[in-house]
Each structure stands twice: as structure tokens, then as C-alpha cells.
């Protein structure tokens, strides 16, 4: 009987100020969508970083005048480093063959090049990408070594751009979430105002404050939850329609748009949890001052 009472009161309130409810719901949805965007961006960057890290190797370009002895010393020296997984020697000929293979559709790149124009190198595969700069520094300047390159710079840049993007989006979504809470509070205040006579009588006959509050809190929660579900739905749709297609259309990026269902579920849970939190904050804001005995 009590649940029926709360439910019908809440439904009535929602119907009475439909416009305010719609405004509150859509603000919650939009702000949560931004928040979801932040999460997904984070996941994309995580995938990208993993992807790059797996590919990271240190390329040790050798001078053309390196002696056989120097090469052997260098190779054994490098393979003994405990950060190093394995070392592959790539001769000038192999390097040129790889280059040809890489640009096989654009023969103008390599047709005019003499086959020995690319340097021989040692490809050093690391046990972990984070050792790249240390290993590179270690090998730079060793006898017979011309230059050392690794993908670390790109990863660093990527992480910087990512953290900037995340901060901006996070700030925006926080501002929007505050606005959403304020809109919910306003919606509830209107509902309270519309029912002030009833509330007066409820207090008069001894209804407890919680009994009076619950329908209004449910209204705030309802608005927030609907907003959360809408944003969650959009995230799910985007995942199944947009991201998988983008992954297929841009294969050279690697599996950056492949999200595990656990990851997606986590994003949805965060959206719903934050939405419920916003609803509660908004309701509490509206209910704090009313009900003074």
C-alpha cells in the first residue's frame, strides 16, 4: 500500500511538470554522455598505447663502416641486457626488401634508390616498452652505432594529448552535471510548490518527514535514471554501430576500437551510478529547506 502510494505520487508529479522533467532528463543525459565519452576516450587511448607498446622496438642503425668484430660484440652485449627480449640483425639488403614490401603500391619511392642506401640495423625487442629510453641511451654512441631510434616519443605525445582531452571533457561534464542537479532540484521545487497544501496537511496529521520526502526524491531519481539510461543506450549503440565499423574501416590503427563487454559494462555502471548520485544531490538540494516544522 505504501509502495503504491509512493509510486502514484511520483507518477503524478512527473506528469504535472512534464516540461521541467524533460529538461532535467535531457541535461542529465547530455552530461552523462560527455562523461561516457571521457571513459571511451580513455579506453581508446589505452588500446592504442597497448598496441604501440607491443610494437615498440629500439632500432640501432649501424654505421656502414662497422667491422664484423664490432657487430658481434655489440650484438652479444645487447642481448645480454636483461631488458632485452631478443635482437635481430637486419642487413642492408633485408632493410631494402622490407622497404620495398612496405611501399609496394608506390614503386616510385624505391625504384630510383640504390639497394644499399638503407643502413643495416639491430632490431631490439624489449621485454617492456618502458625500458625503451634507457636502452636507447645505453646504446647511443657505442662503437659502430650510427643512430638509435624508438617509438617512445609517440607514446609520450599520445598520453599528453589524451590527458588534456580527458581533463577538458571531464571539466565540461562536471559543469553539466552540476547544471543537471540544479535542474532536478528546480523540478522538485516546482512539484513541492504545486503540492504545498497537501504537504501542509500531511504535516498536520503527523506524516513523518521521510514519508513526505520520498515521492519527491523518487521523482528526482527517476529523472536522473532516465537520463542515465538514455546516455547508456547511446553509448551501447555507438559501440555496436560506430566503433566496430570504424575499427574495420581504419585497420592500420590496430584494434583500438575493440572494447571488451566488461569495459562497456563498467562505463554503463559508472553512468548509472553518477546519474543516481546527481538525482540524489538535486533532490536533497530541493528538500533541504522545506519541511520546516
Amino acid at each position: 500500500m505504501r509502495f503504491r502510494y509512493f509510486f502514484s505520487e511520483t507518477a503524478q508529479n512527473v506528469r504535472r511538470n512534464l516540461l521541467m522533467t524533460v529538461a532535467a532528463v535531457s541535461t542529465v543525459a547530455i552530461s552523462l554522455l560527455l562523461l561516457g565519452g571521457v571513459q571511451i576516450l580513455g579506453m581508446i587511448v589505452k588500446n592504442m598505447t597497448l598496441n604501440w607498446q607491443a610494437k615498440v622496438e629500439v632500432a640501432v642503425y649501424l654505421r656502414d663502416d662497422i667491422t664484423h668484430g664490432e657487430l658481434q660484440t655489440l650484438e652479444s652485449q645487447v642481448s645480454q641486457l636483461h631488458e632485452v627480449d631478443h635482437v635481430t640483425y637486419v642487413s642492408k639488403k633485408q632493410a631494402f626488401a622490407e622497404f620495398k614490401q612496405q611501399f609496394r603500391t608506390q614503386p616510385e619511392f624505391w625504384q630510383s634508390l640504390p639497394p644499399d642506401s638503407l643502413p643495416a640495423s639491430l632490431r631490439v625487442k624489449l621485454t617492456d616498452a618502458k625500458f625503451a629510453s634507457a636502452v636507447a641511451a645505453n646504446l647511443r654512441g657505442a662503437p659502430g652505432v650510427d643512430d638509435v631510434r624508438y617509438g617512445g616519443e609517440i607514446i609520450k605525445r599520445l598520453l599528453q594529448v589524451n590527458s588534456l582531452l580527458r581533463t577538458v571533457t571531464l571539466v565540461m561534464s562536471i559543469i553539466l552535471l552540476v547544471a543537471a542537479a540544479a535542474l532536478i532540484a528546480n523540478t522538485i521545487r516546482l512539484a513541492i510548490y504545486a503540492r504545498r497544501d497537501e504537504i501542509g496537511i500531511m504535516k498536520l496529521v503527523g506524516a513523518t518527514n521521510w514519508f513526505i520526502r520520498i515521492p519527491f526524491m523518487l521523482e528526482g531519481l527517476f529523472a536522473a535514471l532516465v537520463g542515465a539510461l538514455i546516455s547508456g543506450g547511446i553509448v551501447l549503440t555507438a559501440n555496436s554501430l560506430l566503433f566496430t565499423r570504424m575499427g574495420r574501416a581504419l585497420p592500420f590503427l590496430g584494434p583500438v576500437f575493440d572494447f571488451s563487454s566488461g569495459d562497456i559494462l563498467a562505463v554503463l555502471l559508472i553512468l548509472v551510478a553518477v546519474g543516481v548520485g546527481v538525482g540524489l544531490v538535486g533532490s536533497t538540494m530541493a528538500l533541504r529547506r522545506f519541511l520546516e516544522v
Partner: protein
Amino acid sequence: MIKTTDVVKEYKGDIRALNDITIDIEKGEFVFVVGPSGSGKSTFLKLLTKEEEPTAGKVYVAGKNLASLPRWRVPYLRRNVGCVFQDFKLLPNKTVFQNVAFALEVIGRPHDVVHRQVPQILELVGLGEKLDRFPDELSGGEQQRVSIARAFVNRPLILIADEPTGNLDPATSVGIMRLLDRINRTGTTVVMATHDHTIVDSMRRRVIELENGQVVRDQSRGIYGVGT
């Protein structure tokens, strides 16, 4: 049942609404609180439901010191104190039945209790035939009966009536007084503020007269005013 000792109530700006009120009302009494407008009648009644709190002095209702009653217990106090007002305070969009049922529903009474007690009490106040009417389809006297039914449906220990006949013609007022008298006979303590001479004089009950916030007369089986 109701006891106040040396109660002082001051509003903002040093307005003294009540001054040294010491009153003792027994269980089952019927008490008129009389006096001109602004004499402190309404303020006194509001102390009994903790709508107002005294600046000094103590108020006991049903054996409880209201000053030490925590905020969250106030609703439970009010379940023991029914209130009736001059302006009825009915909800216009609810029927007679729903208005009375509302008072039980919002204190969490189960559905079957509501459906048993509401028709009973409306029968008692003489509105057994008008359960489905809306307040604006009723006369003033009938509306006041609904509000009395709402105040009494929960069988409170105390019924407080603030000028319940203030908006009613004399003949209708007599009917309301009969009803309050009947409720009083069930053992309910009734405290009624009024400035209706005829009613007070015909009922011959205890009269507490207030003037400028002070008790100037407390007389059992009294009349409205000496010399009127």
C-alpha cells in the same frame, strides 16, 4: 493531558504573544480559550502541536515535555493531536472520502484499516451519504464536518479547534458544537479557541480567557465574558 508552566512566547521584535501562561487541562476536559483577536489564543494552540516553541517555560502534552521531544518525534505527537481550523483546510481535488483517507494513508495505515475507519467516521459526523462529493459541492458546515472527521479518524487523545465556527452561521455552528461535544464524550480532550459568545454561554464548560497574552480568567462551567 495538557500542562504549561510559566510559558512565555516572544516573536521577533520583542512582541510578547504569551506571558506566564500556567494552565493544567485534565484528560477528557472540554476547554474554551476565549479572548479578542491578538490575545494569544492561536499562539497557545500552536504550542501544543509544536508548531511554535515557547521562549521560556515548559509545555507538556500527553505526559511529554515538548522541549525535549526530538524533531523526528514531532509527527508522532501530532498523530495524538487532531486539528480543526476556521478555513477547513480540505484538499479541493480530493473527495470527502479521499480527504479523510489521506490522513490515515500518510501515517502509513494499511488499506483495509482505511476502508473500514473512514466510512465509520464519516457516518459519525453525519456525512455517510456524501463520501464521493468534492469539498466545493458541500456547505460550509459539511466541510467543517469533513475536517473534524479527518482530525478525529485517527482517534487522537486531544482535539484542537481554532475557531471552528468562525466561518459558519449560528444554526450550523450549533451542529458543529454538538459534534465536538459528542467527540468529547468519547473521552477526547477538546481545546477550542473561539470568540463566539453564544456558543460558550450555552455550553457552560471551562473557559480560559486570554488578554494581551495573559490568563485573566480560568473558570469551570463559565460563560464568555463577565458583564457581557
